[in-house]
């Protein structure tokens, strides 16, 4: 698997930054994410979650912190950014 391949947000390890490549799921769900600022092209950083973790995934989207249930995190496809940005 190369670095640009899409994977569900729920599988992204903690600390990793990734770009949203697709939103799956119903119309209401998509519209909700979009209104909260999560669209295709958004860059997110996983704060809590990752494969094997329990509970919702917590991501940083800009300055906001969004908690996303596991079922939903499966429907957000992201592509991990090649290297973590250094401060």
């Amino acid at each position, binding site marked *: 698997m190369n670095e640009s391949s899409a994977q569900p947000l729920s599988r992204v390890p903690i600390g990793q930054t990734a770009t949203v490549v697709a*939103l799956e*799921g119903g*119309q*209401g*769900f*998509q*519209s*909700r*994410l*979009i*209104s*909260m*600022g999560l*669209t*295709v*092209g958004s860059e997110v950083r996983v*704060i*809590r979650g990752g494969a094997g*973790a*329990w*509970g*919702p995934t*917590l991501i*940083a*989207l*800009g*300055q*906001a*912190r*969004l*908690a*996303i*249930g*596991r*079922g*939903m995190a499966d429907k957000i496809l992201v592509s991990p950014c090649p290297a973590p940005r250094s*401060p």
Partner: protein
Amino acid sequence: MTRKLTIALAGNPNSGKTTIFNRLTGTRQHVGNYPGVTVEKKQGRCRHGGVDLEVVDLPGTYSLTAYSVEELVAREFIVDQKPDVLVDIIDAANLERNLYLAVQFMELGARLVLAFNMSDVAKARGIEFDLPQLSRLLGAPIVPTVGSKGQGTGELLDEVLRVAARTEPVERRQVHYGPEIEEEIARLQDLLEAEGGAGHKFDARWLAIKLLEDDRQVREIIGDEGILRRAAESIRHLAAIFGDRPEIVIAGRRYGFISGACQETVRLTVETRHTLSDKIDAVLINQVIGLPIFLVLMYLVFHLTFTLGEYPMGWLEGLFGWLGGAIARLWPPGSDSIVKSLLVDGIIGGVGGVISFLPNILLLFMAIAFLEDSGYMARSAFLMDRLMHRIGLHGRSFIPMLIGFGCSIPAILATRTLEGRRDRLTTMLVLPLMSCGARLTIYALIIPAFFAERWRAPMLWLIYLIGIALAVACAKLLRITVLRGEAPPFVMELPLYRLPTLRGLLIHMWDRSWMYLRKAGTVILLISVVLWALTSFPRKTAFDRDYDGEAAGARAAWLAPHDGPADPGASPDARKARYEKRLEALAHARRAEELAYTVAGRIGHGLEPALRPLGFDWRIGTALIGALAAKEVFVAQMGIVFAAGSHQAGSEALRTRLQASYTPLQAFCVMLFCLISAPCVATAVVTRKESGAWKWAALQFGGLTALAYAITLGVYQVGRLVS
């Protein structure tokens, strides 16, 4: 001439909208409902620059789609009521997302003022704005504010007045959606304008965009078959071009417009990656210790409620006791005037008993307001999501449940933030199991009477935990039976932690406590009087025993000379004590006989066969009937049943009587039954209103009562065997 302007406050959840609203209106606010729907409508007044302002706090939303009631309500208010000025409260540290809503307001053609709130936080994070330029790009004035400190609210109102005074039509900045979409918008816009009707009442371009977004409600407004067919065609056409629904593409273009505007005007001078909030979160929502911390916090809340509340409660009890005594002295001693009995035993005994628990209620509401305003409540939803998910509920359902610890009514209203109907109904139905503040009065009466000091807090905690566990079990049961369906998606913003303002806390606390006080002044007053009447009439005149005669006999026996060996070792003191004990026993027996004769006594006696297996006697049965009206009436009623004829309103006297009459097991069963059984009538009415059908209220009422009966029966019978 005095002018009156209506301004509406809108904005994202967590943008500090409520803080600004409180700043502007102070305590001059009232809460109502939007007509036809069950969304709370907060309104308030203020005066600025000689102009009266009516301020409407619209529900917090991220968008203006037709997917949630809140968004629809906000949209309808702006479109139909046409407020003079719309103030969009924007979290300046979360600019792009917050502007998404602002852009939709722009498209609606509202007279807009943007408040860049929490501008201090944004500044601390190294975000710099070129406000004049951004204001030009967005076509709306921008005022920086810090709601928590009250900064900028004066300037905000100045700007509101300036915008309201403008006579020329709003000069609108438009998002350009690209040639393909613009072409379809123009086509629909022409049709709408030609057709008249809705096209004239609303902005045609806005309607056209909404049609392309496939907005269910706008489709209904238009209703014209031809236009709807044309819109469906446009959607298909655009979907074929973009490979995605136009709705998504349109949203993307809006964000494009926003980021274009921000690129020129917003600068990030420092890259902050790890904020203080994140550091706190690393601990508070930690995988391992997050949940234990939450449980400990809840325990502390209850512990404080009890220990701190005890002192003012004592003062209030003293006050009511004194008041009762003072009023009783207006009559000659020993008088059995009905008016005196009504005032002292009925009104002061009943309402006073309930009001003396106000300190506990205030403290609990204060603690909940603190958790809410600090941002921790959202974390608790995060922590609970996995567990809630397991019982088929949304993590967010947990917030109404927490509010349910205060009062079921605001909690049921809070379920409005839940999106799925099944989710909402399930939450609503099990909510009464979250032990409310009114029931706290019952525990506050019973626990100190029957349990040693060190067991009191754990006992209270246990009762609350039982409620939670049962709520979980019932929710699960509902989700696999009558309310079967997939668990709804969970997505929620965790706001920044912030130190709540005292003002905000007080307003919050007051809002809820007022509801409680109002209940004490109206429903409970009425019920106290009714119950007093039920426990006083018919009055018994002919008694089974000759109490006066027996008392006289006992007195004679005490005063008679005792000098034989018949009564060995009886000192004068012991004899006097024996006499007094005998008198008291007689008074008790007389009171019991009087009560048994009254209407309440008869009902209680009628219920006794059914209640006896639970360890309850007719007095508890009578009080439970009162508790149907409002849970705290149970305490008032026990006060009347036990103190009838005496002038003591304090609960210490009642506790002594209870101790003499019941075992700790019975006391526990009473608490258990009160916890689980039918919610108060007010809750049932709100459930009916919010669910839209009596059947849900009936299911809640009947189901919980049956459950209470079954569980209490089990506990009492097993407990009796064990002890």
